[in-house]
């Protein structure tokens, strides 16, 4: 923690960055975002396994983009979303200072145990950071498959009718607050498809048709891009298991295109590139 505060003060004092985004205590055992503009605020910086927020999501905001240089405290998993923003031309590498934090794991959103996404993490020691803080974490052997929520397996085993019923039930709770969109680091369009009204492709009312259209379009727009940070599901006030949709598409991307998002900024996302050797068995 000392080295984080020290580094932050150094960056702020030297005016190398205009703003530093990090974590502070939420008063209990949790953590919440902290926006550091002076050395005094830097004292409040913390980092622990309760630092769930993906702070990279703030980098897509116009007011943050307008700043000359911004530092962000990021775990390896968060940096994966930064890599996606880079490859999609949304941030300039020079405008961001990444303070990478080594991380063994974070807690699950309910704070009870290890977060499932950490079991397949390949970046306990962050890639692509400007500085890495924290003791190195021994690399663990990640499981072959991407995180497979037990529920996803259960869902895949269901019949089509059962699955339809499951999603009808889950999505009926959606109140169309778009918290999922706001929290997602990769939902950066200035005019979202749902706000497009000439013509209105997606019904904005909270009804089954609109809810299905919105949630499916949101998930499809993340196909081959989602880096599994889980922020959408964590912020959902209706507790809709959004990561099930994301997970399912992530698996497709890995199986069909051997693609995992967010590791290499030079590599091209599978859904906007053509390779002759790509599996085409989905064309029937």
């Amino acid at each position, binding site marked *: 923690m000392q080295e984080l505060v020290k580094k932050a003060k150094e960056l702020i004092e030297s005016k190398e960055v205009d703003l530093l985004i990090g974590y502070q205590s939420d008063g209990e055992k949790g953590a919440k975002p902290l926006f550091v503009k002076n050395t005094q605020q830097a004292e409040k910086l913390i980092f622990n396994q309760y630092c769930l927020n993906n702070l990279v999501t703030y980098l897509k905001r116009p007011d943050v983009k307008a700043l000359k240089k911004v530092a962000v405290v990021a775990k390896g998993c968060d940096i994966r979303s930064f890599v996606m923003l880079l490859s*999609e*031309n*949304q941030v300039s590498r020079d405008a961001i200072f990444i303070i990478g934090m080594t991380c063994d794991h974070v807690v699950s959103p309910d704070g009870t145990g290890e977060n499932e996404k950490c079991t397949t993490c390949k970046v306990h020691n962050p890639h692509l950071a400007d500085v890495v803080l924290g003791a190195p974490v021994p690399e663990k052997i990640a499981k072959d498959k991407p995180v497979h929520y037990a529920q996803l397996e259960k869902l895949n085993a269901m019949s089509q009718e059962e699955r339809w019923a499951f999603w009808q039930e889950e999505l009926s709770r959606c109140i169309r607050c778009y918290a999922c969109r706001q929290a997602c680091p990769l939902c*950066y369009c*200035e*005019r979202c498809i749902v706000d497009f009204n*000439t*013509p209105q492709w997606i019904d904005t009312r909270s009804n089954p048709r609109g809810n299905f259209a919105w949630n499916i379009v949101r998930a499809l727009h993340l196909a081959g891009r989602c880096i599994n940070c889980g922020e959408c599901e964590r912020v959902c006030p209706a507790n809709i298991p959004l990561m099930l949709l994301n997970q399912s598409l992530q698996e497709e991307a890995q199986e069909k295109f051997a693609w995992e998002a967010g590791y290499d900024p030079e590599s091209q996302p599978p859904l*906007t590139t053509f390779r*002759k050797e790509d599996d085409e068995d989905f064309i029937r």
Partner: protein
Amino acid sequence: MARIGVFVCWCGSNIAETVEVSKVAEVSKSIPGVVYSVDYKYMCSDPGQELVKNAIKEYKLTGVVVASCSPRMHEKTFRKAALEAGLNPYMLEMANIREQCSWVHNNMDEGTQKSIDLVRMMVEKVKRNKPLDDISIPVTKKAMVIGGGVTGIQAALDIASGGIPVVLVEKESSIGGKMSALDETFPTLDCSQCILTPKMVEVAQHPLVQIISYAEIEKLEGFVGNFKATIRKKARYVDVDACTGCGTCWQKCPVKVDSEFEQGLGKRKAIFIPFPQAIPSRPRIDAENCLKLTKDRCGICEKVCPTKAIHYDDKDEFMEVEVGAIVVATGYKIMPVSAFPEYGGGQYPDVVTSLQFERMVCASGPTLGDLKRPSDGKLPETVVFVKCVGSRDPEHYHSYCSKICCMYVAKQTMLYRHKVHHGNCYVFYIDVRSNGKNYEEFVRRAQEQEGAQYIRGRVSSIYKDGDDMVVEGADTLTNSQIKVKCDLVVLATAMEAPDGIKQLAQKLGIGYDQHGFLTEAHPKLRPVETATAGIFLAGCALSPRDIPDSVSEGSAAAAKVLGLLSKDTLDKEGVVAIVNELTCVGCQNCIRVCPYNAIELKDICNRQGELQRQVAHVNPGLCTGCGTCTPSCPSRSIELQGFRDTELYAEINALAEL
């Protein structure tokens, strides 16, 4: 307020038999916005077009729907008529009630209802259409011909004679192609080299033709009228400008390897020209066999070269050429005997391909025209020719007919008999196909005057018995099995698409069939065009054909090129993509998916010139209106004009509101 006219065509009975056209016209009147509707027997006829034009003027129409055939057939016709009547052509849409309706249905009620639905959809679309302008694009007045065989040479010559500069790209070190290896040609028995070399010289001397030999196409960018090709000039190790072609190097070179030009029957050196009349008459070094390049020994050619033209450190070079049109004349290859294990599979030297036989009898061949069989140099007293080897055999090899074998086998029997007057020659055949000018007479001459004995039937096996070859097969006319002892067997093996043709087709963005032959835009009406505008085909790249056909096609493709490049600009449709710069976030999805590289990032700066953000920008000259970009945009910020979301949405909704 929209004022739409609906014109329903009978297409004779093509549509009227399955669709109640008068009812379609009648019901159309009730669609909001439609002020006029009519049905007519042939809307594409002159009176039909007049009907459209007059109605546009008389009823002050703001949009037109023609319910007839596919827009591929007559959209141009009607849009031109609309323009003549003063209506923007893009305010006319076609409802396809023929291919999509009458031709695929046989129930009158259903066909009529579907036609009404299709008309209603297009009325709703055309109400929201916006007038578009055609785009004028400049044309590069230069052409490229790929392949320097007789077809490519002819195409290059004809284009250049029309005053258009040509770049002729040949993958071997000399132009001339397969024809340069032939002895005499059917049906006139004139010497192949004697008629080809004047053309080779003519093309080489033509001031508007630039020959780039030993080179291949690396990359092609751009579009009709404005292609940019990257050509890989393979390392030749000889400076063609310094070299005078004196021949000292290949005389002194100590390495002897099988000559490709001689079909493996003769030898060449490691530094060589393929044949004496090669153009350009500049050698190249075969890097796989050269002692200097493989083992860093020898180096004789460099020492003896009087002009210091040998460079062992030569590398592949790339050159870019900008051309307006391209002719692909990449030719063919023939199957080797090794592909046929049942016929000896290459283990018997005295089983040869017809191309090898050409070299064996050719006066410029490895034996200088003395017919000697490869195994022991003996004069073959009996020769068996086997036709359709690998052709017309869908179970084992190719389903297609190689077309030229019937004729050249007849010719080869004559060439043989002219060399060996007392010799016997037998031809195993399935059919004799001789449909060309003077072809049938030529085959009859071989059979009746030159003593070729034709046996109708397939050969089952070929084997060796002592010094002799034995050919076993069926004679299906006498219904008997026969065995022929002979000295030499000539297999008329199938013509195939050349190696690397699929990769080339992919680079050029043109189609090929299951055999690897390139596909024409229409087999009858557009035989030398491809589906990609500005790229044309000629010769055996399309399918097996003989010299007259290939040369004709070379000229045909040249005529197409000259027609295209005779104008200073090309008009293209205004159906191109457009970006909403206010909502675009510059994610580059459209840029990545665009097959034509027509989209690039554009900087949006403030008044101080500081970069604010980047958005996508479509180059309308490059955009072909394919629409691939539009679904890739997450925020619907790129649209295809003429197919905007509002237009398509209205079209779909019109169908849903039943």
